[in-house]
């Protein structure tokens, strides 16, 4: 405690429905704590905010693999065994377009262990990387892409959708879906420079939920991270431009039946996560599947159809994906989906109201575990948008969602990707044409 470095007053603390304490160390590293002494466990999460620092070679996907390999004081492959031996649960890591994170829930007498491992990753990784270590990480990242992209039907649609929905210099536009083969050409210096500029205290925060006091948490973080140089402050301007016309892309893939994907970029002012989740619940929830009922059971146009809302810091996306039924025309399906979306909320007001309550209730019950609460805190911080307060949610209803859908799901802000069956093409598909969709906004 006595030797903890200076920390400064809270900076933009996240607004959360549960009480938390939030401070920054002088080097910019955030510390957020929720005390809960019900059980002797603490959920921790280390998060780096990317804020657009995405690389076309996929360095943001490679970085966490290097972090998990070895550091100056942690031998190769010891990260997970050390945590596991301490009785850690909920051990995970992830790299999205907005953040890189590491999680662990440990007995409260082992809190220093993940802090040590994560401080190693932040402070003692870059100079340590050598050619074999880089080669290992590249090989694993490429293998991961094979499984998650190359072997997935029409997977190219994901990156293609982004290239049409995010314009100009938007970082999501060129971010790869899985590391590309060009990762092989990336050298050590390039990787080190990337790590030293992105994975720094100024962009990071540590979250604690559980059997620990805020004072104790700050003292421990200061011990392990206090001497780490801050890195450059993040100055990032959100690229706001939205597509002004829609795009149609045709992909050929080795699939049995054609597929259709429609993705809309949601304008920032309309991006209210709670309401989009409720809309998703209405179209494709556990209890109600209006899309399936309409397009598979009633119209028999598809064999499967799903809806998804992807919340992203720099522009969220809403998508509908379908596998077209044998002998049916994807063009007809698209027209019917447009027709359906124009009416659905208004026609299903009571179900929409139910979906709103269902999302509210799910969120409330999902907060039971320390790990879930740490995830909520960390997500809010990384996306710089607090979760809607349950009290505010009361104002959401069919009318507010109808308004959102009417304004956001318009042809000008969307991309339509048709994935045609072609036995000679790869499973993931190849793009054969890309045209502007001049459909008039209804």
């Amino acid at each position, binding site marked *: 405690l006595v*030797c903890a470095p200076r920390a400064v007053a809270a900076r933009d603390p996240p607004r959360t429905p549960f009480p938390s304490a939030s401070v920054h160390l002088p080097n910019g590293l955030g510390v957020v704590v929720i005390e809960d002494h019900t059980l002797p*466990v603490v959920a921790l999460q280390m998060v780096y905010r990317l804020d657009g620092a995405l690389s076309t070679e996929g360095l943001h996907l490679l970085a966490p693999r290097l972090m998990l390999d070895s550091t100056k004081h942690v031998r190769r*492959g010891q990260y997970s065994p050390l945590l*596991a031996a301490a*009785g850690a649960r909920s051990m995970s890591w992830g790299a999205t377009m907005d953040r890189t994170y590491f999680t662990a829930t440990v007995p409260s007498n082992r809190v220093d262990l993940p802090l040590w491992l994560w401080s190693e990753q932040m402070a003692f990784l870059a100079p340590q990387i050598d050619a074999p270590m880089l080669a290992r990480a590249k090989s694993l990242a490429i293998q991961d892409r094979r499984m998650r992209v190359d*072997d997935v039907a029409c997977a190219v649609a994901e990156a293609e959708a982004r290239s049409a929905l995010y314009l100009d210099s938007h970082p999501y536009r060129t971010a790869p879906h899985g590391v590309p083969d060009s990762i092989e050409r990336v050298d050590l210096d390039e990787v080190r420079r990337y790590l030293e500029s992105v994975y720094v205290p100024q962009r990071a925060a540590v979250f604690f939920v559980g059997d620990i006091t805020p*004072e104790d948490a*700050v003292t421990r973080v200061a011990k392990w991270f206090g001497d780490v140089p801050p890195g450059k402050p993040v100055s990032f301007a959100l690229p706001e431009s939205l597509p002004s016309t829609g795009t149609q892309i045709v992909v050929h893939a080795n699939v049995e039946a054609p597929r259709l994907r429609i993705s809309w970029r949601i304008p920032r002012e309309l991006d209210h996560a709670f309401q989009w989740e409720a809309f998703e619940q209405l179209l494709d929830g556990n209890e109600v599947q209006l899309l399936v009922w309409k397009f598979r059971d009633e119209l028999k146009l598809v064999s*499967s159809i799903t809806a998804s809302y992807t919340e992203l810091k720099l522009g969220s996306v809403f998508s509908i994906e379908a596998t077209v039924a044998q002998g049916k025309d994807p063009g007809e399906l698209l027209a019917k989906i447009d027709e359906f979306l124009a009416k659905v909320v208004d026609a299903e007001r009571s179900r929409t109201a139910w979906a709103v309550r269902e999302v509210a209730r799910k969120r*409330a019950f999902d907060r039971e575990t320390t790990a879930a609460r740490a995830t909520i805190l960390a997500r809010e911080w990384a996306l710089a948008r607090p979760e809607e307060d349950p009290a505010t949610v009361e104002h959401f209803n069919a009318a507010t969602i109808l308004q959102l859908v009417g304004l956001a799901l318009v042809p000008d802000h969307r991309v339509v990707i048709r994935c045609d069956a072609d036995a000679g093409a790869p499973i993931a598909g190849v793009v054969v044409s890309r045209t502007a969709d001049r459909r008039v906004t209804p």
Partner: protein
Amino acid sequence: VKRALLALLIGASACAAGAGHQPAAVTPPQTPDAPFRTSAPEPEQAARFVPGRVRSLLLGNGIHVFAYARPGELTAVRLSFLVPPSTPIREWRTALPMWHEIVRAGGATSLPPSDLRRRLLADGALIRSSMTRPVVSLELLGRGSSLDDSLDLLASIVTGPLFEEREIDFRKRMRATWLADAAGRPAWVGDSVQHELVFGIEHLYGGSLGEREEDVRAITRQELVRSYESLRNPATMVIGVAGAYDDVELRPTLERLFGSLPPAKERAATAPVPQPVPPATRRLVLVDRPLATTSIIRVGGALPSVHGTEEFAGLVLNQVLGTTGYGRLDDRLDKELALTDSVDMSYWHDSLASEMTIEASVPAARTGEALRAIQDIVASIGRDGVAPAELERAKSRIVAQQAGSFERVSDIAWALVAIYALGDDPQQRIQSYEDRIMAITSDDVRRFAARMLPADRLTTVVVGDTKALRGPLERNGQPITETRNAVGQR
């Protein structure tokens, strides 16, 4: 908290200034090394989790109740039905997964909101249902200690579900959608083929692939009601309660709501369930997935339900083999051979069977090599057991994780029910868990491994591109015994 934090920050600020904290230097600034960084921090004090006591009640009609008090906001009440092993496979596969949803909906189609749902929402409570192998459950998750209103609702749907035709139609549609989706998921297909092989198609756990959309469409209301009513029988019911319930009110409330349920007619005896029998030789089944660049390997075995030392040896073996990041499989497949960074173990045991499976996703070109490595690991444990340090690490890990398993009231309520369903006493088991784990020896693990995963009689399923895999696998000493199409059919 804020005052304490402020005091801490002010104090720390002065200290840091005195310690000469350096401003960020030019390119690239380095973190000074320090002696405390050189090795993993040790635990600061002994772990201090001591599980609470389980209260055991017997209602007037013979329903067993197990309750675990834990402070907090939530309480879970889990009402479970134990499915007899003689249940016909059609009922198991099609009726049970549907009726628990129909009963949960309280007889009212999920939407628009029924009175039941309105009342639950006003209560801030949630009723959900599940089928976890031989246990079907309805669960109430509520806030606060007084659950009277919500429990009344749970009791009303248990005692008088309507089984409305429109709800049945709705569930049939949901089930059919689920089946269609599952058939397109390679991991599910691999899992189902594996179960068919290790249990046999007549076993309750072996027949997933046999369920067809037409079976779902054909099931009648009468069949669903009959299946439900035969299980709504005090002799097959058990209640698990966990959380912030009112201890004084517990017995009178449960007695009032569930204590008068009359016994149902006994089920007609049917043929006994076939037991899993290890095959006479090694089996390797390929499920074709043309052009796949990654193969999913599943290696496993099954036994009739194991108990006592064997059951706990299984838990330890599961930890020794490990998962992505640690354990024998990861050490070999990832760290030594760089074959995969995704490997997983599953160990399941209940009153009908015990089962263990290793699953790994590997590059197609290295499937044979990965399979050989897995077989070697399994054979080595079955032959030599495990080293003392490895054994101690595995056991300590299980014990240290125990506190975390008490985080969700729902998990606790399920554990109480599942332990009872296994024929064990929840209080005795929770209290003795650590001792029973720590008593497992290397020889116990070796014996269990040799029986569950016999090296010369392993069952393996590989989901991948048959054309590309056949030659290399056979050249690698892995003869293929059978091939299936992408949806797992012969």
